């Protein structure tokens, strides 16, 4: 969806909603409820369709923008389960997914000065003050592998979470073990994914343009992403925003690790047995369609047994990290707790994920002594190679 797409543009697509809540649950025959807000409050209002109907009502002046509109708009977790399951809305011009349209609604709320309190307000204030959000983290690549001429470029993301530090360190260690030449690309500020998701679009274009100026010269080099949010945004949204975008040769770190195990550059150590469950992050799975690579990596680790949660792969349930609205109390926390409950039901020892936001939220929700049960994939691989 182009940034210039307006609420009027999405009205026609929104008007196709059949009101049947098909956007809220996964594939037949399991039919698992996947939409966190609908899971918590089953109601048409709290489905993708509810958001679309709110837009229709706003367009028709049947309701006004106010603080509750913003709280409602930001209460969607952005897990894009709706986009995987409703094929109707994107089928019609402007061919936007339901969450694309919700992002647009957020932008309209923000434009009118309505932002939910808490984390969203903090982000908003920082964006307004600095024109950016977060700060680029630096990957200290060891000299023996660091080369500006390397064909592989690690995309160094800005540190929005404390989890990112450990993930970055584990990544650098792994790259060193692999030993192939690599260079690091430091973002020029946020890649834009957070600003895009939360409707802070006024500041988005300059950031995207600034990053693209630095990225474009990379040509056909392979860009490896650690955060699925950045990868999904750069690969899928930059083309919609940048007129001179050219396709990027891109890979997620899990895919790089699969290759490293295959060609023998990375070897599993003999370690004790451990049962793990893998949480598919929304943007790595539903967003980028990468389901197999993390599982192949886990299969490459000696002594690691994967136990799937009930909701997995395209039917994964969100961690709730990006639910910033306050329309429903404790929605973010309850969503994460629900996922942890599902993990605990597997009997696994470790909850593995591949997204810094998921790791952050799961650790936060677990008691102090149990936080080590949550790891990013790269951290586990680093420990066991």
């Amino acid at each position, binding site marked *: 969806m182009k940034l210039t797409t307006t609420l009027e543009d999405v009205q026609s697509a929104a008007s196709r909603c059949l009101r049947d809540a098909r956007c809220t649950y996964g594939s037949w025959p399991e039919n698992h409820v996947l939409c966190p807000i609908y899971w918590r409050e089953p109601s048409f209002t709290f489905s993708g369709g*509810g958001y679309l109907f709110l837009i229709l009502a706003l367009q028709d002046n049947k309701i006004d923008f106010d603080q509750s509109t913003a709280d409602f708009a930001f209460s969607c977790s952005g897990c894009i389960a709706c986009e995987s399951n409703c094929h109707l809305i994107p089928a019609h011009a402007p061919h936007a997914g339901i969450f694309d349209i919700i992002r647009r609604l957020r932008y309209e709320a923000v434009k009118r000065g309505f932002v939910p309190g808490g984390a969203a307000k903090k982000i908003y204030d920082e964006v307004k003050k600095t024109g950016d959000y977060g700060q680029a983290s630096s990957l200290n690549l060891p000299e023996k592998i660091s080369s500006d001429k390397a064909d592989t470029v690690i995309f160094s993301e800005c540190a929005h979470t404390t989890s990112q530090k450990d993930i970055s360190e584990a990544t650098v260690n792994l790259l060193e073990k692999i030993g192939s030449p690599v260079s690091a690309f430091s973002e020029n500020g946020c890649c834009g994914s957070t600003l895009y998701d939360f409707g802070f679009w006024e500041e988005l274009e300059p950031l995207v343009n600034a990053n693209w100026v630095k990225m474009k010269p990379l040509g056909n080099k392979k860009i490896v992403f650690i955060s699925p949010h950045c990868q999904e945004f750069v690969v899928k949204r930059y083309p919609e925003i940048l007129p001179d975008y050219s396709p990027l040769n891109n890979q997620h770190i899990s895919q790089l690790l699969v290759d490293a195990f295959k060609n023998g550059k990375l070897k599993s150590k003999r370690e004790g047995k451990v049962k793990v469950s893998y949480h598919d992050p929304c943007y790595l799975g539903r967003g980028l369609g990468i389901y197999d690579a993390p599982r192949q990596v886990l299969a490459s680790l000696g002594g690691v047994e994967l136990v799937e949660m009930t909701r997995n792969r395209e039917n994964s349930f969100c961690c709730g990290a990006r639910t910033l609205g306050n329309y429903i109390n404790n929605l973010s926390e309850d969503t994460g707790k629900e996922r942890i409950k599902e993990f605990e039901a597997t009997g696994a020892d470790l909850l593995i994920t591949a997204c810094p936001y998921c790791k952050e939220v799961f650790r936060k929700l677990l008691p102090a002594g149990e936080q080590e049960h949550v790891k990013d994939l790269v951290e586990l691989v680093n420990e066991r190679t």
Partner: protein
Amino acid sequence: MVTKTRTENEIICKELREAIGAEKVKDDEITLVTYGRVRHGFDIMWPFRKPSLVVFPESREDVVETLKIANKHKFPVTSVGAAPIMLGTTEGGIILDQRRRDRILEINTDSGYAVIEPGVSFDKLTSALRGTGFKCAVGTMPGPGTVLGQALGRGSQSFSTRYLSTILDLEVVLPSGTVFSTGSSHFEGVGSHLRYGPYPDLAGLYTCGYGAMGVVTKAAIRIHPVNEASRVHLAGFDNYADAIDYVKDLINHNIPEHTFIWDWHMYLTWPLALEDMEKVMPWILESDFRKPPEGIPYDLVSTLLSGYPEQVKVYEEICAKVAKKYHGRVISDEEAEKRFPATLAGFRQLYGEYSYRESVHWSHGRFAGWYVFAEPKDMKEIEKFAANEFAKFGKAINPVNYYSHPFDYGRSILLRIAGFMEPEDIELRKKIAAKFEEMYNIALKKYRAVPIRPIGSDKALDPNNILNRDSGLFEEGEL
């Protein structure tokens, strides 16, 4: 129309929250407008209406309490299983959304019925029936729709040959709060296997009653055995009348489990994925629906044959013989695979998996449909009449959703012709609506066709007319 003041709304809201719990009664503006009738592709011409409250009962007792309070205040209640496409919202009333009541309470494979709550969807029931040796009636759709919503509205079920009405037994709450069962479960400890017999067919009162005579809180519905062998047989016909004769002949000889007549516009587009829709639909919308291209039958009849393998084999031979008798021809799987593979795949899914997965709805919300019931010989004339009338609309509404199927062992035939027009063209919509009305009148007077119009009165059961007023069953209703 009874319009309540803000204070009265607040009183009713307070009473409801005390009776069933605050979390089940919503009155926030966002909930109200999203449950309202807004300017939407399917109901673009209808006036905006907004309820005062949306109630989410979690038990039968919640429904009872809600109705008692609403009835006391003569406050309108619109009951839904899950929000349907066209929600008949009454301005200022209560929407009673039973989606949270979605348990499958019993699957009885001895008698062949399932007891369900109103929020159970086809996706949920078809999934639960896997491995039981039973299935829902073929023709059930769409997956997210509630079983009860369709059964009570009759929906797209065809009741051809082996199927009867889906409903066996209903638990109903009257506006007074009285609860009763319509069938054999009325007697304590007795299962729901008998719809009527030594007592009147009370479930009939609620079939197509659109919730206007009581709120259904539980239902026993018929499920059907999956036979050892089943096969979809296809036959093509160059005209509708021959297709009707073929279907009638098969039904009269107890051959099909289910049968359906598809106009060529529909069978070429109905099961397509988006990318195929984008290729096919522009061509379809430009073409004259009365003149299919060479080799494409005007009508395709899909017939589900089931039973023992030997039985199905004989049925196939009979279908071929009967098709020939009525100037039709068998469409082999090879031919179907070559000429309309997506259609064949759609049939296999519908008939083979007994499930319906959502295909891309090309209607864009711009749906204009005309549909009637008539006896078979009358329907042959009606189809000619309706096709000619639709042709006069030209490309403004080129019919795409065009099909027919038998009811009650072929005693009655349903014909539905629908086209898609520009959704924002209100004037065109008005013209079409007026034309449809004229066509209904002609079809009724000249061809004895039953139009889709409300007829009854529910005054005895709902004296204050609080229930689903927009269904139009009440003689003083708005429609």
